[in-house]
């Protein structure tokens, strides 16, 4: 046994906070999915689609995503450094500030305070709070790694360090703004330049919130959960460096056919295509790792979360570059195809890996087994079906809509001149999407229940272990 204690309470605090904000974000997502086909579900001024959409995206990216990244990174760093956090009390303060910050962000967004850049909506006072949070996180992560008791840094630590560094650069640059009031500011960048900075940020928010930290979890928790070592260390090195290098060049693929200079668009597209290689480096590594013993798919309930997660990551990282191609972009850009793509990444890749990691961590904290593997299996199948139904529906209607917008007759006249023709055709698809969202949500609620029951079981187990100690210890002493 180790002669020191890990800061499990903080890790669990972040995990439970992430789960709470995740449930909020998912329920908001359900509401806005209904608003798209049933406008009476808007309740102006606060609960309209326009104000709620950023609550959904920020709630899940920052509340669930970053919350889970904080908690699970602390877990991984402590284990891989073989020591507790360097500043455990700072981590506690960070946990409280995180929750206050997310709550304030949600209220501010509902009140209409927004910079209106995607994933950088929060106004300047909240931006400052987020920078403070990130500095606290960085100090603890880097400090703990510096004072580690294990010489070699495992691949998960590389991804965590890269996340810490990259997010800091991205967030600060894109949020440079001149305040015009207590909750209003204007981006210092204008026009095409503003667009270029925003999508440099926006695409890399995906890269360094939804990719690198999730890969850190994948490389750590897959071997831990299955007992199978990572297939190739060399491949993980090549994939890591090429990924963190190439990602930053690709933002312009969000601006294909925009007034952004063509050379920047083309550069973005080329690097986006290159990005398939490092992404698939991790996919191949993941597959070959489980390939050492495929029977783990049956014998270990967590294996399938990791395998399906990395599968969706692989699909995501081929579909994304495809979308960057000009000929594809002109058809699907601005349509539902893109939310279909995003939700495969978040519901298929991020949610799979994060929930599996939490399933691994929570029982370990208490030294118990998961409350119910059967419930975990039900959770798995529901989120899988919900996500597939969601994404497939959006891809179909995205192509349909893009085609209706483009269709011209032999005289060059629009076939569907009235925009409403394509819009009302979306409604049935959007209703199916709501159903898909309900299926996914029910799956996630099974997950939440399972985690809470495991904690309850763990606490009872701890209490049971502690109880005999008192009198028994006294009598023997």
């Amino acid at each position, binding site marked *: 046994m180790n002669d020191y204690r890990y800061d499990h309470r903080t890790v669990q605090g972040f995990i439970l906070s992430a789960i709470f904000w995740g449930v909020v974000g998912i329920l908001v997502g359900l509401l806005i999915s209904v*608003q798209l*086909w049933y406008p009476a579900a808007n309740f*102006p*001024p606060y609960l*309209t*689609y*326009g104000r709620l*959409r950023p609550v959904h995206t920020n709630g899940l990216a920052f509340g669930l995503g970053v919350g889970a990244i904080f908690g699970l990174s602390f877990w991984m760093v402590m284990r891989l450094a073989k020591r507790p956090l360097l500043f455990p009390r700072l981590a506690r303060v960070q946990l409280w500030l995180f929750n206050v910050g997310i709550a304030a962000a949600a209220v501010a967004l509902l009140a*209409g*305070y*927004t*910079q*209106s850049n995607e994933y950088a909506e929060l106004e300047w006072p909240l931006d400052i709070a987020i920078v403070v949070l990130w500095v606290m996180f960085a100090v603890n992560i880097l400090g703990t790694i510096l004072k580690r008791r294990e*010489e*070699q840094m495992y691949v998960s630590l590389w991804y965590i*360090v*890269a996340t810490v*560094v990259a997010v800091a650069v991205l967030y600060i640059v894109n949020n440079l703004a*001149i*305040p*015009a009031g207590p909750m*209003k500011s*204007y*981006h*210092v*960048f*204008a*026009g*095409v330049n*503003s*667009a*270029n900075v*925003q999508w*440099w940020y926006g695409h890399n928010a995906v890269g360094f919130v939804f990719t690198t930290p999730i890969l850190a979890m994948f490389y750590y928790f897959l071997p831990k959960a299955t007992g199978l070592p990572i297939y190739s260390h060399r491949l993980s090195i090549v994939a890591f*460096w090429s990924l*963190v*290098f190439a*990602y*930053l*060049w690709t*933002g312009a693929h969000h*601006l294909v*056919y925009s*007034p952004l200079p063509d050379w*920047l668009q083309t*550069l973005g597209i080329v*690097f986006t295509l290159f990005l398939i290689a490092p992404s698939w480096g991790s996919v191949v590594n993941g597959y070959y790792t489980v390939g050492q013993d495929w029977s783990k798919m049956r014998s270990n309930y967590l294996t399938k979360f990791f395998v399906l997660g990395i599968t969706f990551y692989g699909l995501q990282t081929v579909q994304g570059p495809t979308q960057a191609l000009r000929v594809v972009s*002109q058809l699907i*850009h*601005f*349509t539902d195809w*893109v939310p279909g793509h995003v939700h495969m990444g978040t519901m298929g890749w991020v949610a799979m890996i994060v929930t599996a990691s939490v399933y691994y961590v929570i029982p370990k904290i208490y030294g118990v087994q998961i409350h119910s593997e059967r419930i975990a299996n039900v959770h798995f199948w529901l989120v899988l079906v919900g996500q597939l139904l969601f994404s497939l529906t959006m891809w179909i209607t995205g192509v349909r809509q893009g085609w209706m*917008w*483009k269709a*011209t007759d032999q005289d060059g006249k*629009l076939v569907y*001149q009235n*925009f409403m023709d394509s*819009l*009302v055709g979306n409604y049935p698809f959007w209703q199916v999407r709501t159903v898909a969202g309900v299926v996914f949500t029910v799956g996630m609620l099974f997950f939440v229940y399972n985690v809470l029951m495991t904690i309850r079981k763990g606490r009872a187990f701890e209490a049971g272990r502690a109880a005999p100690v008192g009198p028994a210890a006294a009598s023997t002493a």
Partner: protein
Amino acid sequence: MAGTIYRKPMTFAVAALVAVLVGSVATMAYPMLRADMHPKVEGLKPLSPLELAGRDIYQREGCMGCHTQMVRPLRSEVVRYGGMRSPEPAGRYSIAGEFAYDHPFLWGSKRTGPDLAFEGWLKPAAWHAAHFKNPQAVVPRSNMPAYAFLEGRLLDGAEMQAHMRALRVVGVPYADEDIAKAPAALLGKTEMDGLVAYVISLGKAVDRGTRAVVEARLDLQNPVAGNAAAVAKGKTLYADNCAACHGDAAEGTPEVAPSLVDDVFLEVKGDMPDAAYITVVKGGSDAKKALGRPGFKEGGMPAFSGQLSDEEIWSIIAWLRERKAHPTGGK
């Protein structure tokens, strides 16, 4: 061994930072130094205080969650989103220099509703006011939320002055005088006024002049009058181009656009010949003077001369004539 970097966290962190910065400098920082990232079309004007207030509301309400403001250089988009209605004869798509004062850009990433880049050329203020208040009353199956609450909220001149000053810091050329005059310009104006003013300013930041004045030649005869094929074609064209404002059956929309099937023409009782109709359709509200009638006070009929051919406009008029002959279609 190259492997030592994995034993030196600070060296590793610096290496990761460098890896991240190379692409950031190449594609984000370096372009800022280039002129092609800072173009400005000649004659670009900053938004007026009222329009700026509207833009702030556009941001606050998250309009960019559903509406783009960027017409791509694709024929279908130029035609669909009003590029053919601006005065340039060949039509236009969005160009970089139009956005020089946009802090931040509001191009959006999703078109749940239509693009608004050239909305100023498409629909009049009255249409927007009615539509914001109750979108479904104007566009029956729309999924847009209602923004009637904007009507009851007065704009704050002092707040807008602060916004203009902040924008001046980042490079929008507001003069002291512009800022000083803002409260007077906003006096008694509501948030609804601001949002409408902003939306109808879109695509009009630059004075592109107006279309050549359409001459009123009342001697012209409708070459397809009564032609059944033309009437059928006119019906379709009407639905696509006119119904949004004038109603599906040309009965008009209160407060937005007049009936086309009664015997009132440009607010004066007594119909006019087909030639007067084509004059208004081609020239928009600007043609009213040529016809000597006042027209709808808030009228903002767009000019269709770049959008529809003469023959197509005659077809629409032929269809309207059929409807007028119908017993329910007028007096």
